[in-house]
């Protein structure tokens, strides 16, 4: 960590960035903080068990100070979210400086991450990507009726806390579909099942970066990440598009209209 800390201190001292967003130890707990001078960097920590939606916080800060250049400490998934946010014009690539850190192999396995390292890192060993779709094949092996019963049972526990949406780094819409009164009844419990979760799942088809924060934020333990991984896999198999990989390629569900994502057999 020391090389990264030195690099961050140099960036702050030379005025390259106005501040760096990372985790700081406060009363023994790692919490997000914006470091504005190199002296405070001695409290900077990297925590493997507690992950926060740091790129979402960055959007909030940058919207208020659009002229400042802000650095941010990113892992693999957060680096992908930066690329997605650049594509959607929520952040400007020249006003954000990413500082890469690695995830260890245990975290990569827990997250089933297929790219547990950002595009550039200062130090550390890159973990090996984990290709594990056993959570999806488990559900797909069930017959249709049982699958439906399983999902309705899980969705029925939802308390409409909007945690999955609030913590998601890819969710930045100012008017959310889940709060649209013509689609979802405002107030009232339980939410409309299953479309409450399927609405967001469809949005995640070309935006989800597979960070896993949504499932960690659900108080009822609904396996929403499986839904998002499934649509992500569908988009990858059908259109060969993975969100967060290429910063110039737009997704297939955005209105391109130039036939660049034409499916075979569509024009029959």
């Amino acid at each position: 960590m020391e090389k990264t800390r030195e690099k961050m201190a140099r960036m702050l001292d030379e005025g390259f960035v106005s501040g760096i967003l990372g985790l700081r130890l406060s009363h023994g707990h790692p919490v997000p903080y914006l470091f504005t001078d190199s002296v405070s960097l001695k409290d900077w920590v990297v925590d493997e068990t507690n992950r926060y939606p740091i790129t979402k916080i960055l959007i909030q800060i940058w919207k208020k100070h659009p002229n400042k250049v802000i650095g941010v400490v990113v892992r693999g998934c957060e680096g992908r979210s930066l690329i997605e946010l650049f594509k959607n014009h929520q952040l400007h690539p020249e006003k954000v400086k990413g500082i890469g850190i690695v995830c260890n192999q245990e975290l990569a396995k827990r997250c089933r991450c297929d790219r547990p390292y950002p595009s550039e890192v200062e130090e550390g060993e890159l973990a090996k990507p984990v290709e594990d779709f056993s959570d999806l094949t488990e559900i797909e092996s069930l017959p249709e009726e049982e699958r439906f019963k399983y999902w309705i049972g899980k969705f029925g526990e939802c308390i409409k806390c909007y945690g999955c949406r609030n913590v998601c780094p890819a969710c930045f819409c100012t008017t959310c579909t889940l709060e649209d009164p013509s689609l979802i009844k405002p107030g009232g419990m339980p939410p409309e099942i299953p479309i409450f979760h399927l609405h967001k799942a469809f949005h995640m088809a070309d935006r989800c970066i597979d960070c896993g924060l949504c499932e960690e934020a659900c108080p009822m333990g609904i396996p929403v990440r499986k839904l998002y991984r499934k649509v992500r896999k569908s988009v990858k198999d059908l259109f060969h598009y993975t969100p967060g990989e290429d910063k110039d390629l737009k997704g297939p569900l955005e209105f391109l209209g130039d036939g660049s994502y034409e499916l075979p057999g569509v024009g029959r």
Partner: protein
Amino acid sequence: MLPIRVMCSGRISPHFILKAFQEGADGVLIAGCHIGSCHYGKGNYITANRVAVMKDLLGFVGLSPQRIRLEWIATSESNKFANVISEFTKEITQLGPSPMRKVSWNRKAERVMEPLVLQP
């Protein structure tokens, strides 16, 4: 069968399809202009992409992906329109009513928690 007219198949948001299933529809048929002859340019390309992803998603959740169908029907092909509709209706009758109808929370008349009304 409830026909809903839109100006272009590209107007059909995936959220409309989901809402139709929530309200109890057994199947959704989307009929658009042929590829290359969309009145607005290229709206039907995006519809094709959306329906492809939606089928996978619904299949994963347990609603048969055969309940959504996308067809390219030009304005003059009235025979094809009639045939597609009768075919689709037959398919849906075979598949049976939508499993959403069996979910007790989804009945519009019933709400699990009624609002408390205080008598004066």
